């Protein structure tokens, strides 16, 4: 393609040179004074620059135009009969919509497969897949800023708040009247409800947090799987021997939030993030006590690994709190590891956390019908079977969850956590909330702060300031 265009440009350039040479010879004969000389150099330069500009414009315009130009021979064939048929029968107009998705190889392949099936069933709708490399949210936001976003896109529950707040997502309720939303886990559907109670996304899949434990290490130390906070401290202490540690924990909100809720705490009040309840402070103090000085537990960074999965997979530690995504990772990197999962040790009530992504439709889309149809199609049972077969994230439908649990019995426990799992979503400014609470936790562990309540009060003050500035 490029070579062809370059060749074309060269041809134009050569032709132009010939023309200008002729004109210059002519000029030279008629004008033999010095002035003529100078105008000749100018002419030469002008013609050269003109030729360059022309060549480049040919290169640009020509190359751009080439694609549709090649397509024209076929296009009329399809469209002419349609145009004729248009008058009497008025058939369905063919439309084109786009879907933006995460760009890892698995998603790209899956989405390609799914939209092929969709287009077979809906020949009048053409779907273009747009895998977004780099920072998905940054790209999506900038494209929205220029009103150039895709019709359908993935929406993380963590990001959903700011998109809903800015009226960027289409409320799907009226399009879901004929759809079996009852089959979806209620907490997942709720996660994508706006402050107005409308549904802004159809859950695609999800993961929850559980306690992972190394069966052999626990058996060797004669430790039962911990069920309460006291059990957990005792077990971690007993398991911290011979250079091993009881626990590895990522010192961040999306790991310790279940401890807040287990202690009767919460993250949101009246639709606003409120993080500094005494229950939360008590839970955070407990969490930090597990990691303090690296005696019974430590962070992945202090253990010299990238994340929990490596520390646990390499048997440096006996236990961790992690999401369902760690199971496939461990199967791959530590195939011989004998591990189990259990509900996170609790204080007052059982707790976990849910991470989920939905199919959302742009509020801007011109193809509401086709776009909602695609979103519904992608989350139907047949498509979720693909999610089940891949064994990665867990399907968002209860009926498919049962199939998933049967297929992967060792991951059934992750579904048990759903009813008591809190969402990874703090409204409009989720990123700021996570950052502030993380800073509080890091300050308590490494920054010399000692009072969890004060640390969370400071975080709350910063969150309020960020919220006021919105």
């Amino acid at each position, binding site marked *: 393609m490029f070579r062809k265009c370059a060749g074309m440009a060269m041809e134009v350039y050569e032709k132009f040179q010939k023309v200008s040479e002729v004109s210059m010879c002519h000029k030279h004969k008629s004008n033999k004074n010095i002035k003529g000389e100078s*105008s000749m150099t100018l002419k030469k330069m002008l013609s050269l620059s003109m030729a360059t500009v022309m060549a480049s414009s040919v290169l640009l315009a020509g190359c751009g135009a080439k694609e549709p130009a090649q397509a024209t021979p076929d296009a009329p064939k399809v469209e002419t009969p349609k145009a004729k048929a248009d008058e009497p029968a008025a058939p369905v107009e063919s439309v084109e919509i786009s879907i933006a998705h995460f760009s890892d190889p698995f998603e790209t392949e899956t989405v390609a497969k799914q939209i092929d099936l969709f287009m077979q069933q809906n020949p009048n709708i053409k779907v273009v897949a747009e895998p977004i490399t780099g*920072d998905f949210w940054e790209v999506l936001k900038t494209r929205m800023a220029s009103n150039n976003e895709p019709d359908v896109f993935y929406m993380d529950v963590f990001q959903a708040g700011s998109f809903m707040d*800015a009226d960027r997502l289409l409320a799907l309720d009226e399009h879901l009247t004929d759809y079996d939303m009852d089959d979806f886990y209620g907490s997942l559907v709720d996660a994508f409800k706006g402050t107005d109670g409308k549904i802004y996304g159809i859950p695609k899949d999800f993961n929850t947090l559980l306690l992972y434990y190394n069966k052999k290490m626990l058996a060797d130390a004669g430790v039962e799987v911990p069920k309460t906070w006291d059990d957990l401290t005792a077990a971690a202490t007993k398991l911290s021997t011979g250079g091993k540690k009881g626990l590895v924990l990522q010192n961040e909100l999306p790991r310790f939030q279940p401890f807040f809720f287990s202690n009767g705490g919460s993250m949101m009040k009246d639709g606003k993030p409120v993080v500094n309840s005494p229950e939360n402070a008590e839970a955070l103090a407990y969490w930090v006590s597990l990691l303090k000085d690296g005696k019974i537990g430590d962070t992945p960074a202090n253990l010299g690994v990238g994340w929990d999965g490596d520390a646990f997979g390499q048997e440096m530690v006996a236990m961790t709190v992690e999401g369902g995504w760690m199971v496939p990772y461990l199967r791959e990197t530590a195939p011989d590891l004998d591990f189990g999962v259990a509900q996170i040790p609790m204080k007052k009530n059982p707790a976990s956390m849910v991470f989920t992504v939905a199919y959302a439709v742009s509020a801007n889309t011109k193809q509401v019908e086709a776009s909602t149809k695609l979103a519904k199609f992608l989350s139907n049972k047949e498509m979720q079977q693909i999610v089940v077969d891949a064994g990665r994230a867990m399907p968002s439908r209860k009926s498919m969850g049962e199939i998933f649990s049967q297929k992967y019995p060792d991951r059934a426990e992750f579904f048990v956590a759903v009813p008591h799992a809190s969402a990874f979503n703090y409204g409009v400014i989720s990123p700021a909330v996570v950052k502030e609470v993380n*800073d509080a936790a890091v300050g308590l562990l*490494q920054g010399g702060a000692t009072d969890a309540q004060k640390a969370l009060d400071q975080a709350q003050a910063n969150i309020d300031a960020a919220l006021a500035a919105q």
Partner: protein
Amino acid sequence: MNRWKSPRLRQDMIAAYILVLPMVLFILVFTIGPVIYAFLLSFQNFNMLAPQRSTFIGLKNYTDLFKDPVFKKALMNTFTYAGIVVPVQTCIALVLAVVANQNIRGKTFYRVAYYLPAVTSAVAVAAMFMFLFNTRGLVNRFFSIFGFQSVSWFANPKYALPLAMIMAIWSTVGTLMLIFLAGMQDIPESVYEAADVDGANKIVQFFSITVPLLREKTMFVVLIGFIGTLQMFDQAYVISQGTGGPINATMTVVLFLYLKAFGENRMGYGSAAAFVLFIIIFALTVVQKLVFERKAES
């Protein structure tokens, strides 16, 4: 000015303008235009996702900035970072240039070896440094010989910024060395020969000949050093996984404005931070230019 009076010159000018036109258009559309737009945004309460809700709020973004403790921390970090990195990297680059300028065996190898970090992507460098500086990494093992306790450099609020400094120095020294090396090629051999005759040793020669004659190059190196370090982003982004953590230890001004603009959708606030940084860099550049020029006169 009567350059437009001569027809020949006028025609040349027209040709010249036609030739520069594409580049000028390119700069207007992709650089000047966005700068002006960002300047306008900095007076607005502009949410990237909801531009229709944006309102003109005058200087509020700017006054808010100087009340924002995180922005103050970011300024502190950035100045600390620049204040340490620039002198250190300039000195090391000068020394390396002297070494690479000697007629020693394998000097091409040294030149390539010193320059190699400059052509390595910042992300790859950061990944390598995180490997070297983690608790089980080479650096901690080395220090543990002397009885130091292992620390996780990038996860520890005390060591994260120093780690970013080490990374920056390591990766930019090569380019600066190249500039010094080019400057040294311009110093005539005869000056050194005369100094030899006068009995000046190598160290005296370095301070009395090489350093003063490289003044212009030094100014350039310090200038681009400051401009580059005040805009530090990539190392901080990689070390902190985009958060500026631990507890804002690696929060720089550019990372701050990025997080405000793209994380919290506060484009106006982010733009204001960008203009504060621009004014600081601009002022520093002018001051440095004046200082160096005054020195050159004396």
